[in-house]
Each structure stands twice: as C-alpha cells, then as structure tokens.
C-alpha cells in the first residue's frame, strides 16, 4: 500500500512537471508581457530593452522556464501584469467566495443525487425512475449557462416583473458582512451548479446500485435476515459508491478553480471569475497560476480517490 502510494506520487510529480511545461509554453507563447508598451511612443527602444532585461525576458526560454519554475516551487507565482499585486494574494483574496459557493453546491449535489439515485435504483422502471432518468439525460446535455440564464430570467427578472419576492441575480453590490445577503446571493448559483452536477452523479449512482444489487454478497446479506434498509445503506451503497466517489474526488479537486461560467453569469467574486477577468486583460501570470494549482489538485485528488477505493471495496488490491 505505502509502496503503491509512493509510486503514484512519483508519477504525479512527473505529470505535474509535464503540466508546468504545457502551462509555461502556452502562457509564454500567448502572452508578451511587453505587449502593453509596443504602441506607446513615449517609451524608447532602450527603455524597452532595459525593461525586458529587468524582467528577464531577454534570456532564452528554457532559462525563463527554470526561473519561473523555481518561483512556483517556492509558492511564488510572480506578480500580476495588470494590478502588479502578488498573484498568490489575488488568488487568496478570491478563494473564500469560491470555496463557499463550491462547497455549498457540492453538498446539495450529493444530497440531491443520493436521494434521486437511490430512489431510481430501488424503484427501477417506475414512473419516478423514468422521470429521473429522463431528467439526468437532459441535464447531461445542457450547457450550464442555459440553466443559469433561465434561473435568472425566472427568479430574478420574471418574479420582479410579476411583483413576487425576487432573488438577487448577483449584478448588484451587496453588503458582504450580512450573512442573510450571502445566502440570498448564493441560492441561484448553487441551484445552477447543483442541477448540472447532479445529473452525472445520479446517473452513475443509479447504474452502479443496479449492478451491485445482483451480487452474491448482497444476497448473503439479505439471507442473513438483514433489513432492506441496512442492506442498502451499509452493504450496497458502500460498494456502489465507487464511480460516485470518482467524480466526487474530481469535483473536490476542481473546487479550487471555482465555476468559471456560473461565477461569470452571477458576478460571483470567485476564482473562476478572476480567471475570466484576468484573461480579458491578458494577465498570464494569474491565469498560469490558477491553471497550475487546479491541475495539481486534480492529479493529487486522483491518488486520494484510488486509495479511497480500497476502503470502500476491500476486494480492490492496489499494487
């Protein structure tokens, strides 16, 4: 087991190394940090050369990569092109809002999909099951912005027009010290994320629960005289949760990246929107940092998920 984890960690280092190269190549190729000065007649060619030199841009790309990597390893992603702030500070400032949104959405997603998935699997081919299956299919095929815009249109625009109590759609400034305001602003983005995520979770949970139901150990558990409830929650669910845990692990890792589209639609001050805003400004240090942090989380999360498998299903041996 510990040998397995060590081997996976070594592989992970390699993968993250590849990711840093990809990120750097794309980030540097796409961004000329001097682009802001190219059309500025007040800056002479010598000044430009001096700035290039001071920023280390006159060095060969591999050298630039190594110095960037050296900083990244120490947790220093450099400074933003636009605000000149430290990239890590900018991200840290946005992290709480993203974590609140994503954790709330993940909790509701897990609750909704557990209920729906278990209901669908235990009432196979009933009207309720057919409805849930159809809904997951549609949810799977939907772009997240459609749900977001529809919710805004119904609960923000529509309710206001019809004189009903309407929900804020996030475009206004609000009192950030008031927890009730936070909750009000959270409802629509959390609902959007839940609706889109729950489709996948429910679908996987339903099919894996149905698979598990016919296995020997479930029959054994039933013939021991255990109640259906115990068989379901203690025996079947634990085993059927493998695909569920797989996507949960991925989503927990992606948590740190926020939800770019949802945050943009609802003006949520999170990391996804930071990425979007800075991408419009061509602020590559910030974009590269977010990309690298989230990718690293995904790689590490994958290892955690694989180790979690052994606890959920003792038949799995990692070697």
């Amino acid at each position, binding site marked *: 087991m510990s040998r397995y984890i060590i081997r996976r960690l070594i*592989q992970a280092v*390699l*993968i*993250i190394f*590849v*990711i840093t190269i*990809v*990120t750097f190549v*794309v*980030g540097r*190729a*796409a961004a000329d940090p001097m682009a802001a000065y190219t059309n500025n007649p007040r800056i002479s060619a010598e000044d430009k050369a001096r700035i290039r030199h001071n920023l280390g841009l006159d060095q060969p790309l591999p050298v630039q990569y190594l110095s960037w990597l050296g900083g990244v390893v120490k947790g220093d992603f450099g400074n933003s092109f636009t605000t000149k702030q430290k990239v890590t500070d900018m991200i840290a400032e946005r992290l709480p809002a993203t974590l609140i949104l994503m954790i709330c959405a993940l909790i509701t997603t897990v609750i909704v999909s557990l209920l729906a998935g278990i209901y669908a699997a235990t009432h196979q081919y009933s009207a309720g099951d057919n409805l849930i299956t159809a809904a997951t*299919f*549609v949810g*799977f*095929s*939907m*772009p997240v*912005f*459609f749900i977001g*815009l529809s919710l*805004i*249109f119904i609960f*923000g*625009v529509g309710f*206001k*027009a019809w004189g009903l109590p309407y929900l804020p*759609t996030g*475009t*206004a400034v609000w009192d950030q010290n008031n927890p009730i305001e936070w909750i009000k602003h959270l409802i629509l983005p959390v609902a959007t994320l839940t609706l889109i995520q729950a489709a996948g979770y429910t679908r996987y949970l339903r099919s894996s629960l149905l698979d598990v139901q016919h296995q020997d150990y479930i029959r054994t558990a039933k013939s021991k005289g255990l109640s259906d409830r115990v068989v379901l929650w203690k025996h079947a669910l634990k085993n059927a949760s493998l695909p569920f845990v797989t996507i949960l692990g991925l989503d927990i890792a*992606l948590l740190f*990246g926020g939800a*770019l*589209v949802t945050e*943009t*639609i609802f*003006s949520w001050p999170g990391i996804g929107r930071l*990425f*979007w805003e800075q*991408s419009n400004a*061509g602020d*590559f240090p910030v*974009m590269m940092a*977010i*990309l690298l942090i*989230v*990718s*690293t989380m*995904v*790689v590490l999360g*994958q290892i955690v998920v694989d180790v979690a498998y052994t606890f959920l299903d003792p038949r799995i041996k990692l070697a």
Partner: protein
Amino acid sequence: MAVATETLGKSEEITPVAIPTTKPSYSLWGLAFRRFLRHRAAVAGMIGLALIFLFAFGGSLFYTEKYANTPDVLNRLQAPSWLQDPPTWEHPMGTDSVGRDVLARMIYGGQISLIIGFASVLLAVTIGAVIGALSGYYSGSVDSILMRLTEAMIAIPSLFFLIIISKMLIGSVPNISFAGRSLSGSVPIVIFVIAIFGWMVEARIVRSQFMSLKQQEFITAARAIGVKDNNIMWKHILPNSIAPIVVFASLGLATAILTEAYVGFLGLGVQEPTASWGNILNQALSYLNRAFAPIDFIHRGVWWLWLFPSLAIILTVLCVNFIGDGLRDALDPRGLVD
C-alpha cells in the same frame, strides 16, 4: 461464445442454402445495425439529428447568408415578431443587438456549429487513435511518455485552457473562403482547439485495445510472415478496435458541440460576422456583464438571444447522446468500453 460460433460456422458449411433463407447471418455491423434499430431512443435521436440538419442546411433556401450577416440598427433587439402587435413573421426569433435576424443566424450558425462539431471530433479521433496506438503497441518508454502527457492533459481543466489557447490564436484572423462562402478564419482554429481537448479518453481506450490485441495469434502470425509494424498497427489491429472508437466518437461529438457553445458563449469562439450557435449566445452574456446591461436584460429581457440557440444546442446534444447510447449498446453488448 467460441463454441457457439464454431457450431454456427460448421452448420453454415453443411447446409449453405437453408441458412440465408430461414436464418440470415449477419456481419458484426449488420448485427449492430439491427440492435441499433431496436434502441428506440437512438432511432429518435437519429430522426431528431436529421431534422436539425434539415433546419441548418435546408434553411439556406429561405435566407441568404448576406441577410444573416447584415446589421439593421434601427431594428435592434426586437422581440420575436409574432409576439408583437400586430404579429408578423418578419423576424420569428427576434433580432440581435445590431438588428440581424436571429432565425437566419440560427440557420447559418447551425451549419457552422455542426461542421465544427463533426470536424473537431474527426481530428480528435485521429489524434487519439495515433497516440493510443503508439502507446499500446510499443509500450515501454514511448508508452510512459505518452501516457504521462495524456494524464497531464486530463488533469488540466479544459475550459481554462481553452480560454488561454483561444486568446492566443483568435486575434485578428483573416477570413477564409470555403465552399463558395467567406467564413471567419476562427472556424478552423476553434475546430483545432476543441480537438486538442478531445482525444485523451479515446487514446486510453485505443491503448488498452492495442495492448490486448497485439498479444493475439493473428498478430503473431502477421509478424511471422514479416508484416511491418506500421501495417500491423493500422491494417490489422486498428480495424479490430473500431467499435469502441465509434462509440467514443459519437459521445465526443456531443461534448464538442457543447464546448463550441461554451467557447462561443464566452466570446472566444467563431468571430462575427460569421454566425455560430455559440456566438449568438455571447450577446446574452454581454447583456449581463456590461454596465448598462442589467437594465437591458431585466427590463427588456432579451430572452430570445439565448433561449433559441440554447434549445438548438440542447436538442442536438440530446440526440447525439441518444445515438451514442444506442451505438454503445449495439456495438458492445458485453461492455467493451470501460
């Protein structure tokens, strides 16, 4: 299974006439086709997709592309004309922020979105097949390098990466001529960008297929008579792993069309005036984010700018997903795909 096919083969030899008349024998694809036809949702998806194609390509008979791309600022942001007083059919889906007819843009945008979807899947399938084949056939260091690359690409959140790459490539691209039309040069770029993010799962599937197939006797036989590695890979192994590739491609098409929508929605996809379903949606986003936007969005509720393209995308993706599901069941009744 082996026994069953053997007896079937023998009985075919003994009574060659009786079998085609009473029990027609089918090839793998013939059987798959029959199973596919029994999958009701898949057939519905097929019909739906055909209708969407009819809309997008047949629609050109009613509207010219010039009409779709010509602004008419006096009539900007008109709601669908059948809702107005008096109701007319002049702009059945309303007009956009510069007064272009949304229905005409939906038609020409549909063509572009469908072309992007199919072309990028084709490209992604090719990349995935090559990487998976090399990795599975040669194993060793080639395999570890290619698989680390694959895992790295899987770990990178694709939307973030798509944004960076699109920013990099879609600047001021010149228009290109294609099939007698002048299109924005961003179309091939979007195809390329979507394909870069679509090959990883397929590479893994093809790799596992190659790893198991290369151990089989017909490959040993081919090698024994001196067939070159290249021919073994592409002529002997690849045709045997076509089924999972087809299933992957159909599901990949759904993802590709959705990705085009996301990229277009964010304004980084196909550039105007060329329409795509994605970039019609972008106007809805700009009405949310501009300073004056909330007022416009809330008071005028430009719902027709996002509702119609969204519905077209959802319907297309739904149909393609149904077809993919049907293909999976038809081609792989015992779970060839992991």
